[in-house]
């Protein structure tokens, strides 16, 4: 099919999704979104994107399935062991200076990152003075995150990740096996609030000491990434920390000069004082 026609169809599809349902994917990274839409198209049995648009406007369930497919919820516990090693060594001492710590994990998906951080904070004796706000755009993954019930299949990998990440205990202390699932131990949930928050248009909701937003802005275009960095900048206390995914950075953005690298290789930044 003619490339240009397809571009127009995708624009219109995203516009329809926004105007009908309020979900705005117009400033997502185009190459990824295009791939997801074409993938969805081939599964749907419809013959082109314009037909998808018609279906989307008429059928809310179809939209919901698309929404699920467009928000990529792939995640794992202790993804990037070296990040958690650095977190223990360099970030924990920084957090220790605060009597009460507020952390925002934006784009938490099914919660594995949240519980990984909770484990580190608990082991370092900081969890009781911490509040973690864990947010995502997708209600279904938030529900899974709240429940904290994961497939036992992945536990072996997570155990390895945990050890490489500097974990000293038996990883099995943090879950109980139930049939083919691992149920996260309730104490890890005590200082966590899960809530729906859309980075595209929702506002700042508290002042944070640390924000972790890993592997979320890779799905955004530069315009949206700038907007979100602005939101994070406003939400951080002076000298607050920002953690990005291992292949992301504040470079190539309008906010590059508002943050200093704290640990460059791990993409941990500090908001500039003034």
């Amino acid at each position: 099919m003619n490339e240009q026609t397809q571009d127009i169809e995708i624009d219109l599809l995203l516009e329809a999704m926004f105007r009908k349902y309020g979900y705005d994917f117009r400033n997502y990274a185009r190459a990824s979104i295009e791939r997801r839409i074409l993938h969805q198209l081939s599964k749907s049995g419809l013959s082109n994107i314009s037909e998808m648009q018609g279906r989307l406007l008429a059928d809310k369930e179809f939209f919901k399935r698309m929404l699920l497919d467009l928000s990529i919820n792939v995640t794992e516990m202790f993804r990037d062991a070296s990040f958690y090693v650095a977190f223990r060594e360099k970030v924990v001492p920084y957090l220790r200076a605060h009597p009460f710590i507020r952390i925002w994990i934006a784009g938490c998906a099914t919660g594995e990152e949240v519980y990984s951080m909770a484990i580190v904070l608990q082991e370092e004796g900081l969890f009781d003075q911490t509040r973690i706000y864990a947010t995502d755009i997708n209600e279904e993954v938030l529900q899974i995150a709240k429940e904290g019930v994961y497939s036992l299949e992945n536990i072996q990998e997570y155990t390895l990740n945990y050890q490489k990440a500097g974990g000293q205990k038996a990883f099995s202390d943090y879950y109980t096996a139930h049939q083919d699932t691992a149920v996260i131990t309730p104490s890890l949930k005590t200082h966590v609030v899960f809530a729906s928050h859309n980075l595209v248009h929702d506002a700042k909701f508290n002042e944070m000491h640390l924000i972790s937003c890993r592997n979320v802005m890779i799905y955004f275009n530069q315009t949206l990434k700038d907007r979100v960095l602005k939101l994070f900048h406003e939400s951080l206390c002076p000298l607050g920390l920002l953690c990005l995914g291992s292949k992301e950075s504040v470079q190539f953005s309008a906010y590059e000069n508002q943050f200093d690298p704290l640990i460059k290789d791990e993409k941990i930044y500090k908001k500039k004082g003034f």
Partner: protein
Amino acid sequence: MKKFTRKKDFDAIVIGCSAGGMDALKHILSSLPINFPFPVIIVQHRHVDSDGYLAVILNDTCSIPVKEVEDKEPLRTGIVYLAPSNYHVLLEKNRHFALSIDEKVNYTRPSIDILFESAANVFQERLVGIILTGANHDGSQGLKRIQEQGGETIVQDPDTAEYNTMPLAALKTANVDHILGLQKISNFLNDLV
């Protein structure tokens, strides 16, 4: 036979390889001159934990700089880009990179198909796609896409590949322009300069 190729016909080179790829890449990349006027983007399958070291080794063996792709960085000529482990690499129409952690494709992340397909969409006929040694089928669909968009396609001669599964799969799927040994692939690239 296809049109004869001149330097101005291309904007980028993409390479995909898997098992045995390290030596093949060393062979090809070490032959490229420092003024090589195209960006080279590579997906080499590897273990999730092998972070960074491949770029370091390759950087030591060739004269043009080799680096791992960072999200949203602009594509520049004269640089060899490696897909980071555990991320897919895509290209945007504005010629910036976009990473993703979408589910694995062909049981692997990064996937050659994903890079090739998105590069084909961006560069169309101004792209060279190369499949080297490997023990799986990743890359065939992507190479086919490059060919459909009018790009130039090269597959390593399966008889010379350390693992021939990937070259054979590519040859079966796409109607490729050249089947070449490593030395000839190096020559081909050097002739573009």
